């Protein structure tokens, strides 16, 4: 099948590649760019493991062709750490609050939480639960993911994180 040349910005760097028109964005990221932090869990847009940030929106990269992302500005999990290489507030929150177990949903979950906190800097528990409902986790039962996002929100807002009493 004839290939198309695409360019886009991923984690701040200009990248390019030759793709078939049917190549999914997630395969372009994982296989052409060899950034394997973005995962594939379902193929039907349900699980959210492939979530990336694209032009300021959360996007499930298994449901978009690479050619559709031509010219886009994309952030993946590989671009989420602080510039000095330390864990960002969300990454730290997931670790501190035990918001992950097998780690497979984690990159998509962190990317979704990243956009959620841009949209709503101080979400309630219900807003967090609703806001990440497009991302499935089989391990944690979500309770600690909610806490991880609350932890990150507090840290970004410069306030002390207080765990809600059970």
């Amino acid at each position: 099948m004839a290939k198309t040349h695409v360019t886009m910005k991923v984690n701040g760097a200009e990248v390019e590649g030759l793709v078939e028109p049917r190549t999914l964005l997630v395969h372009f990221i994982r296989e052409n760019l060899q950034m394997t932090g973005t995962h594939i869990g379902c193929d039907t847009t349900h699980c959210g493991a492939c979530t990336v940030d694209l032009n300021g929106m959360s996007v499930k990269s298994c449901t978009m062709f690479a050619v559709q992302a031509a010219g886009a500005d994309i952030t993946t999990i590989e671009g989420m750490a602080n510039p000095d290489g330390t864990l960002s507030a969300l990454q730290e929150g997931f670790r501190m609050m035990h918001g992950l177990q097998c780690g497979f949903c984690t990159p998509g979950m962190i990317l979704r939480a990243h956009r959620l906190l841009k949209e709503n800097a101080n979400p309630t528990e219900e807003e967090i639960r609703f806001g990440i409902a497009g991302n499935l986790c089989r391990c944690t039962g979500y309770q600690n993911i909610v806490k991880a996002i609350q932890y990150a929100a507090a840290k970004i807002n410069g306030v002390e994180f207080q765990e809600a009493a059970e």
Partner: protein
Amino acid sequence: MNDMTPTREEREARLEGMGCKRKRVEDVRFTQGKGNYVDDVKLPGMLHGDFVRSPHAHARVKSINTEKALKVPGVLAVLTAETLKTVNLAWMPTLAGDVQMVLADGKVLFQNQEVAFVVATDRYAADDGINAVEVEYEALPPLIDPFKAMDADAPVLREDIKDKKDGAHGPRKHHNHIFEWTVGDKDLTDAAFNKADVKIKELISYQRVHPSPLETCQCVCSFDKITGELTIYGTFQAPHVIRTVVALIAKLPEQKIHVISPDIGGGFGNKVGAYPGYICAAVATIVTGKPVKWVEDRMENLTTTSFARDYHMTAEIAATKDGKVTGLRVHVLADHGAFDACADPSKWPAGFFNIVTGSYDFPVSHLAVDGVYTNKAPGGVAYRCSFRVTEAAYCIERAMDILAQKLGMDPAELRLKNFIRPEQFPYHSALGWEYDSGDYHTAMKKAMETTRYSELRQEQAAKRAAFKRGETREIMGIGVSFFTEIVGAGPSKNCDILGIAMFDSCEIRMHPTGAGVARMGSKSQGQGHETTWAQIIATEIGIPADNIKVEEGNTDTAPYGLGTYGSRSTPVAGAAIAMAARKIRAKAQMIAAYKLEVHEDDLEWDIDGFRVKGLPEKFLGMKDICWIAYNTPPPGMEPGLEAVSYYDPPNMTYPFGAYICVMDIDVDTGVYKVRRFYALDDCGTRINPMIIEGQVHGGLTEAFAIAMGQEIHYDKEGNVLGGSFMDFFLPTAYETPHWETDFTVTPSPHHPIGAKGVGESPNVGGVPAFSNAVNDAFSFLGATHIQMPHDHWRNWKAARDLGVIKGAGAAA
């Protein structure tokens, strides 16, 4: 001592040993996208394989034409059963003593069964090739209802064993019968029923579900034609077992097979078995000489690899009129699908279902399980439970509620009256187990006090009265569940897989600078072994957990182990760690005695080193001992400090717990709201409370999914209706309830550190708690037992069938 000397508390804290909420070491890579999962493995020249699958549940395969497929750009090979026959691999043995087609050989027996394997340069080309393979089928009548499997006129599914009178587990009664397994004393049980004041009998079904970890099953196989070495990267919960299976069925020398399980994205039992994809990828790499990757998509995962449950359990309890149980009789019809591929220890065709007497002192019991074939996918794995234990717990916990209802007793009171008492441990159950330890009354009472159980019952009584007066359309259910698990398979005297005893192992190698590496036979799929195993070692040998690297999943470097499933890692591998660590400490003690110039018996262990009894200033720390072991070991002693332990457990462990669920259901819509869920777990000694709590949250969420919505359902033609996340319920954060966790600690008396395992308890105890809550809500309207899953529609239907929805009428 000066001010700089650390206190005992500081020394202990620095170790981050057992009991500490140590943050996970795995998370540093997982939060940065630096996990290494199978689909991340990319080898030079790697090809992709994918399956042509059957659209029929039961059909004869008349012909397979691969000509057009082989002309598709990028397609290099198409394997069929005929190809596999040349290497004697068209069929493969299952873990349950049956055989299974790798690729359709003459017939297909379930929808989506593997028919041909297309190998191509990339996954898109493989898909093109699949579409070009031409298969001609002749449809045959499908057998879907397990209750009709042994009818005289039922179609013959397995022509390969049609005339075989004996299976792997004894005589077969019918051409679709697999085994009958009986336990207990039938005559004594019959006698107890004959003189019982009160009896209940109910068909309690546990629907077919699927573990569906977020990462599907996958592998990369790479064969080196020059050296004859086969390397397999795979999502294997039991990598060593896979190596041995490959050696046995592919007739390759075992030393030339290298199995690597990298990071695994959840398992829950799905990744224990051997699947056609692994065999085909292995054959394809040998045929093509290039590495071959096979990655399941989600639909393939849900519809072909390893369903769970599908148990239809008829439970009967005999009791006195004041509520003392006197006998339990259970018959199970087990739907195993087209091949018996259950992942149970070899001698246990129904797993440990004979734990079905639960937490109660049944003087007599009898159990019979009949396994049958149907036109459904094979499997029967332990989905986040020990082998068939969640089915057993669901059966007894539902049956006890039904008995309570018949007696007019409170279900918690009935349980308290019949619990095995603390002084009865070790307790010998009527169906053959020796329960190691337990204090059920304390746990149940703590749960009832914390949830203010009696107030909940008062509130429920008031709501029921209001409902009857027509003031509300909401009903309230209180689900009580008290489970006893049996995990840690298991003792070599009765547990093996393909003849290999179910021990587990640990090798610890200390380095001169006071650091070390521990290599394991277990394999984490998210349980956090890299964190917790180091904590056990830290406590045992006084080296900080941060200085211990835990490695799992490489069969070349790890000692042989049976892997991680059935909550066996802490009970078996966890014990092996402690035993290996104690061997290190024993050698360290000899070194310390020599250096401190005393007899070994004059030393005492003190957190992170040895101290001479009565002379507190004479102390030698483990870090220094590590150096000495490599620098100046005592005369006559071998240098080095390492140990390996293969642990054969003397018994299983028996974690238990008390769960209470409070739920409100709107009868007109069937919409439920879980108001409260309280889970008290007793898993013996607690290694990392943070991880235990996380495991409980996750297990409860899976229990919630199963009880309230999950089902792999088949229509009459055998079309599978639960094949995507659109149809198969995985709860999101929004609908998942808030979990309250609690604990008691009753150590296992036979385990080196007293730990029992916890990962699967919440699924085992959670499902009956939810289901009992729904059934309890409807009980005052006349319901006895409503089958799972209790989704909104079924709740509405239950209300309609009970005649409480105006205008909807009752069911015919």
